[in-house]
């Protein structure tokens, strides 16, 4: 469906302005944290798997908030400049349900987004004193 401009979208195309975005269902997971079990968490795991945050080795998705999901959440929060809580807080949920590119953020387990950036724990130029041989 391609419209020349917004006024050309026929009225009533979406009754009550509803959308069929599957990710809206994630809203009911708000506040969920490690150790809990909740209907729909398997869908969230599938989401994280699709975008590279859960590797194939953990692809047996249940409704348990397990270590794999917590790790995926923390990596996602790093990549999107969110507070790294490992929980499904409101800020993270609102980011999760935004429309996005279908390409994965993490390919073959590697990422160069925020979570893949390495920050030296100290300033190497001021603390290393070396002699060339």
């Amino acid at each position, binding site marked *: *469906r*391609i*419209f*020349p*401009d*917004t*006024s050309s*979208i026929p009225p009533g*195309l*979406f009754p009550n*302005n509803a*959308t*069929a*975005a*599957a*990710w809206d269902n994630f809203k009911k997971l708000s506040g969920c944290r490690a150790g809990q079990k909740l209907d729909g968490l398997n869908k969230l795991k599938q989401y994280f798997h699709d*975008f590279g945050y859960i590797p194939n080795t953990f692809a047996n998705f249940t409704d348990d908030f397990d270590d794999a999901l917590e790790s995926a959440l923390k990596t996602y929060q790093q*990549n*999107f*400049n969110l507070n790294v809580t490992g929980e499904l807080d409101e800020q993270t949920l609102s*980011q999760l349900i*935004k*429309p*996005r*590119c*279908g*390409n994965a*953020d993490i*390919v*073959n387990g*590697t*990422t*160069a*987004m*925020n979570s*893949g950036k390495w920050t030296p724990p100290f300033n190497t*130029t001021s603390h*290393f004193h*070396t*002699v*060339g041989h």
Partner: protein
Amino acid sequence: YTFFPGSPRWPDSKRDLTYAFWPGNNLTTEAKSVFTRAFDRWSTVIPMTFAETDSFTIADIRIGFFSGDHGDGEPFDGVLGTLAHAFSPPSGRFHLDGDENWVVSGDISDSSIISAVDLESVAVHEIGHLLGLGHSSVEDAIMYPTIPSRTRKVELAQDDIDGVQQLYGKNPNYNGSSSTSSVQESDTSGAH
């Protein structure tokens, strides 16, 4: 900015790329012109050109709107959710979700339909993938993975420019600021 693993890019012999639209979509001239503008945004900063061709099978970049499962193992999911995807060089495959409410022109923020998506914004992003860029954590960058509906974001950010110029160099006619940052830092201390 980021690259795909292995930093694939178009070979040096491919600096003048062609693109074509899936004939089954029967796009209007107006819709096609959106992609022309999107390609122009990238060719402004790197020494590459993009020209439309009628031959879908031999085009370097093949653009199509598809719904649901369209045979590449990455099915689309209907309205919103995933909007489009594109493959790393030199694949040239560029797929958009045919179920979205794509808007070609006008002030999309005024739309009464909350699921309206600005076509040029998504096209500029996906062309970045076609050139070899991955997703960026810089929110202002075109290569940031998400874009809210009823939002237009088409201007390349410095992060995008730095990334694509790292792959292809700078367009000699580009008079903006050149890439100054690098993922590799050279050691100038003289120590080893």
